[in-house]
């Protein structure tokens, strides 16, 4: 256990680390963009919830908690550091369940760190979860092929999920205001190092899961329980 002072220090670092996550702040986007984001996120969440029978609720909640904690990890990339986003892995582990899991994690982020809020909840869920589901659809099956194919697929899964998310941020900004072009370009460019790191981490992480607990990944038999 840590002392009180440790707690305080950890809180501070955790919050400082919360900058730079793939999302759009409050007050930037236009009404139509916010509304479309909400409608699409609600649809995705509805599909995700439909697929989550009550036997899988605990699993989705737990993975959502793990996703929340893991996204506090910042990894160095010279000369700065970036956050893990991990929406690619969440997609692999949960499929459409990524929508409710990410929505819930974002609510927690908003309440704990005030990072994002009510009006952008839909857009931000969509930015993370739609790429997760797309990567799952594209690469979910390939990760069980030969090691070279599998690790390439896992790398692509991790980096594509970030790329798509960054592009969606760009699009959301452009739909709001054409003059946001430069800002959009900077945001997408800023995500390129993140894409590389996410690709590497996802590839290694998937290899780890295949070795340690292959039943967690899509396309393998569910663990033996009633």
């Amino acid at each position, binding site marked *: 256990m840590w002392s009180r002072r440790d707690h305080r220090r950890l809180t501070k670092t955790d919050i400082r680390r919360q900058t730079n996550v793939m999302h759009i702040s409050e007050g930037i986007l236009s009404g139509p963009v916010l509304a479309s984001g909400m409608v699409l996120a609600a649809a995705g969440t509805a599909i995700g919830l439909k697929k989550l029978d009550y036997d899988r609720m605990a699993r989705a909640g737990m993975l959502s908690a793990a996703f929340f904690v893991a996204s506090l990890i910042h990894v160095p990339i010279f000369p700065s550091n970036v956050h893990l986003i991990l929406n690619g892995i969440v997609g692999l582990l949960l499929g459409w369940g990524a929508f409710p899991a990410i929505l819930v994690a974002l609510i927690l982020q908003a309440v704990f760190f005030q*990072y994002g809020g009510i009006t952008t909840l839909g857009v931000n869920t969509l930015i993370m979860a739609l790429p997760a589901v797309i990567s799952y659809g594209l690469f979910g099956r390939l990760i069980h092929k030969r090691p070279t194919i599998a690790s390439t697929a896992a790398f692509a899964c991790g980096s594509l999920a970030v790329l798509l998310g960054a592009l969606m941020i760009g699009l959301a900004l452009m739909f709001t205001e054409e003059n946001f072009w430069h800002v959009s370009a900077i945001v997408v460019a800023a995500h390129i190092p993140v894409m590389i790191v996410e690709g590497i981490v996802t590839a290694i992480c998937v290899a780890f*899961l295949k070795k340690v607990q292959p039943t967690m990944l899509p396309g393998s038999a569910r663990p033996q329980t009633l």
Partner: protein
Amino acid sequence: MINEPFAAGNSLIHNLDPRIRVGLASVYCFVIALAKHTPVLLAAIVISLSLIFITRVNPREIARRLVIVNVLIFLLWAVLPLTYGDPALFRAGPFSISGPGTKLAAQITLKCNAILLAFIALIATMPLVTLGHALNRLRVPAKIVLLLLMTYRYVFVIEQEYHRLLRAARIRGFRPGTNLHTYKTYAYVVGMLFVRAAARAERVNQAMRCRGFNGKFYTLQQFETVRHDWILATIITAMIICLLFLEWSHRA
């Protein structure tokens, strides 16, 4: 450790019925987000600051959070005035500062901070558990509320696991740097977190089944709306209507 620094307190707003707070916060945040006129935004900042003032939460905590969120706003200030185009506010050689660009950056800054302050005052001042119960009462699907409460419950358990894993790596000399070894270590930590989370989920699911869980989810907290709730809610609603009126009068 993740904590909720604003949740504890005994102000008028802390005691306001959580359902009313969630409802008002949603409406108010959208009104600000959709407003287009600077006077409206200035008024909104004043209202949000008064709400914060009523809650009597620690101003230093608030300031810290404002700084973090405004990091993204700085990017807009760095880009928009230079790229937005004419008419220029002033020129200096090849550089010109765009009038509309500066105005937009200023408006976004006001909006973002007004929304953030309102969110802290109305939502972050309740424990997450209460928020979950309020959402349940406001007819948010039970599955989402259950998922939210379970995620909240286990974030702390998993965070401790994360620190244990990281400490174990550190005492064996792990120093993060820009190299494959670092990424591999973090990937293993992340993988291990997911493996342990899934194993724990299996055990939690078993424990829930042992206690007869059949998909139904109950919350026990009762909310009561007392007279001072209605008074405060009416005042805040009146302010929101004033904002709407201000916005409409500028548009006309």
